[in-house]
């Protein structure tokens, strides 16, 4: 674990956007460059990425059977006869 690489602060700022794929290509280069060099941030990045994926898998619940039919009933009157 490196002791306070000044780049870590910048990395902390970029980490979230990097995880969410919401960085400009220039920022991606900065973030990846730092992750290559910094063990601490890389460990953190991996943990965050796995946690996020795990949360998604755990929290997703499919639509109950029958809901789609109920939604379809809400459609406007059919265009028959036009």
């Amino acid at each position: 674990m490196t002791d306070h690489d000044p780049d870590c602060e910048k990395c902390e700022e970029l980490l979230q956007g990097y995880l969410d794929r919401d960085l400009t290509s220039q920022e991606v280069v900065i973030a990846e460059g730092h992750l290559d060099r910094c063990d601490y941030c890389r460990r953190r990045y991996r943990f965050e990425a796995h946690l996020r994926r795990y949360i998604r898998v755990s929290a997703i619940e499919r639509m109950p059977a029958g809901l789609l039919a109920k939604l379809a009933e809400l459609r406007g009157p059919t265009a028959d006869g036009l």
Partner: protein
Amino acid sequence: MSESGAAEPEAETGRRIASEARERVRFEEEALELADQVYRVARRMVGTREEAEELVQDTYARAFRSWRSFTPGTNMRAWLLRILTNLNTDRGRKIQRTPDLQPLEESDYYLANKLAAVEGEQALDQERVVERLSQGSIVDALAALPHDFRDVVVLVDLGEFSYADAAQILDVPIGTVMSRLHRGRRILKQTLAEESLT
């Protein structure tokens, strides 16, 4: 134009109505194809399955009524979720207190360290360590998030919306999305560390 009589404009009106009807049907079908994805987000924004079903039905009822205000070619899933979050906010949510956060350095790696420490010295790879959290504890921790934070976390982490889409859906600036996301995830991790591993 007026010389050709009433038949011409009438036929035109008929064609216009028919083409509008086709457009509407196309809209409705595209919207219905997104129902499962809309439900997934709705389910984690409210407490129960029944509430989520009701919210999605209200959303579709409103969407089908106001389909003309949707611009074809734009992101319909974001458009539907904008309606959904508005309806959800209108349901009169209580003002919630934001939990106190630990200082960044401590909370930041708190959950990872705690997860890694459960089985003592045995070092697990980073992929496996999160699996020590139960599915139920994750669902509970999400439900416990104050709704301003939860909405953003659910849209970005579960709905996989971009910051820009989430900002548009919630009608807040992108910077607000990013800070709520950051804070929301920290609260989530703190809750998971405190509740799920005791």
